[in-house]
């Protein structure tokens, strides 16, 4: 009999959420994580729990992200209750600013598409300049308006990761850092993983290794298309509160720091920063919030998003090696509540998940389209 029911490869937000969810269902779980030098989207992301704007090109994703956001309040309460680690989660609603008529019209179209995809479950409002200013007096006259969704919120992603790690520990998950995986053998009734720690066996295996899912997937007969997308973020000194809800580009943390972000670059496996992109990010932020012009930055970083060709998550069980699963997404924060709950149940086979089955890699197969 294998030592574990599940081996989770990857200890970021995705792997930790799924490991935590499976362990809560009393399964025996081992997590094989990378080292400090691994690319770690989980330690570089912006911290939004976000619904608006997601899934316009893929209705199941609009429904998935909405469901995840709705599960968040209960998820974080349970996690903090078990671990004592707060996540600074606030379901404050969120805004996406529009700076001109064209942005406004595109936004309305996108929001309406998503609303239709979700059978009106996704709720949003378009706010004009005065309505935005009423809530956030610090905006500039350049802000034409914003889309607002009450389903949105934000969280401290590093506290979330810490809480999940303690939650895994609480439920008896064995966590092994600094692992390099040489080989995965699929055998009758399970898998043997040749890792730095030695050979570890489990009945099922879940690949949650972000950009590492492509080479790991090949070992299990899965073609997992992942695309690298770098984002850069700037961090300011701590300021008195002025922004009581997150926007897509600028948010103020519970501790007063302002995070400024939103960029997309195709630069391969380089998680550094670049002055040209930081200037663009800073310029847009100052256009929206002129007070930021006189605020000091204390640091900046780059991190690599794990994208798929259509930008939507992949939930896939290998047809060649049943019992091997992969979870690939760039929204490990928002989807954490979904991963610890329904997705963990789907992997455990304890729940039929029509929604999750729509995220298989079949959609990339030319013959399907």
């Amino acid at each position, binding site marked *: 009999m294998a030592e574990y029911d599940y081996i989770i490869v990857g200890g970021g937000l995705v792997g930790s959420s799924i490991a935590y969810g499976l362990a809560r269902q009393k399964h025996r779980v081992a997590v094989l994580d990378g080292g400090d030098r691994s690319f770690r989207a989980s330690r570089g992301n912006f911290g939004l729990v976000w619904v608006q704007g997601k899934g316009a090109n893929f209705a199941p994703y609009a429904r998935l992200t909405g469901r995840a956001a709705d599960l968040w309040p209960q998820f974080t309460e349970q996690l903090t209750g078990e671990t004592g680690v707060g996540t600074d989660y606030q379901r404050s609603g969120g805004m996406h600013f529009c700076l001109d008529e064209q942005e406004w019209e595109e936004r309305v179209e996108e929001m309406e598409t998503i609303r239709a995809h979700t059978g009106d479950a996704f709720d949003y409002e378009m706010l004009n300049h005065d309505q935005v200013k009423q809530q956030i007096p*610090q905006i500039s006259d350049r802000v034409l308006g914003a889309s607002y969704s009450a389903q949105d919120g934000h969280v401290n992603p590093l506290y979330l990761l810490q809480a999940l790690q303690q939650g895994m520990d609480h439920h008896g998950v064995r966590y092994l850092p600094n692992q390099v995986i040489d080989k995965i053998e699929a055998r009758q009734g399970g898998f043997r993983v040749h890792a730095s720690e030695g050979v570890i066996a489990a009945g099922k295996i879940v690949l949650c290794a972000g950009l590492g899912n492509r080479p790991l997937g090949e070992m299990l007969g899965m073609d997992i298309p992942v695309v690298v997308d770098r984002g850069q973020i700037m961090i300011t*000194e*701590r*300021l*008195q*509160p*002025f922004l009581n809800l997150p926007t897509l580009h600028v948010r103020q943390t519970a*501790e*007063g720091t302002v995070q400024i972000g939103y960029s997309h670059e195709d630069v391969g496996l380089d998680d550094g920063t670049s002055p040209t992109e930081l200037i663009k990010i800073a310029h847009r932020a100052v256009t929206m919030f*002129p*007070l930021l*012009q*006189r*605020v*000091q930055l*204390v640091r900046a970083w780059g991190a690599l998003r794990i994208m798929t060709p259509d930008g939507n998550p992949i939930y896939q069980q290998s047809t060649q090696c049943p019992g091997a699963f992969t979870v690939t997404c760039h929204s490990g924060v928002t989807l954490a509540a979904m991963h610890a709950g329904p997705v963990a149940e789907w992997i455990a086979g304890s729940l039929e998940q029509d929604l999750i089955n729509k995220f298989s890699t079949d959609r990339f197969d030319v013959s399907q389209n």
Partner: protein
Amino acid sequence: MFRRIEDIGSDTVTLWIDKREFQVPAGISVAAAVLLCGFDKVRDTPVSGSPRLPYCMMGICFDCLMCIDGVPNQQACQVEVRHNMTIDYQRGAAELPQQE
């Protein structure tokens, strides 16, 4: 609490720390000056409000943040004292900058 281990010269500058006047050696950092003058904190932290003194003295730890000449959240260990400088405690998070 602290004393200098060597003399670097006889030049001094006048500082106004927490609205009180002090003479300190020229060429030292604000953090060194505040320690030399016997202050028991430079700031209260924004989250828990606990008092702090300079720690690393080399620009890494950000524990020596002070309001220097009216500019909040300055790393006191990275700023050299100047004549007639005004130095105040950093109390929690910075005030929002006034818009011009």
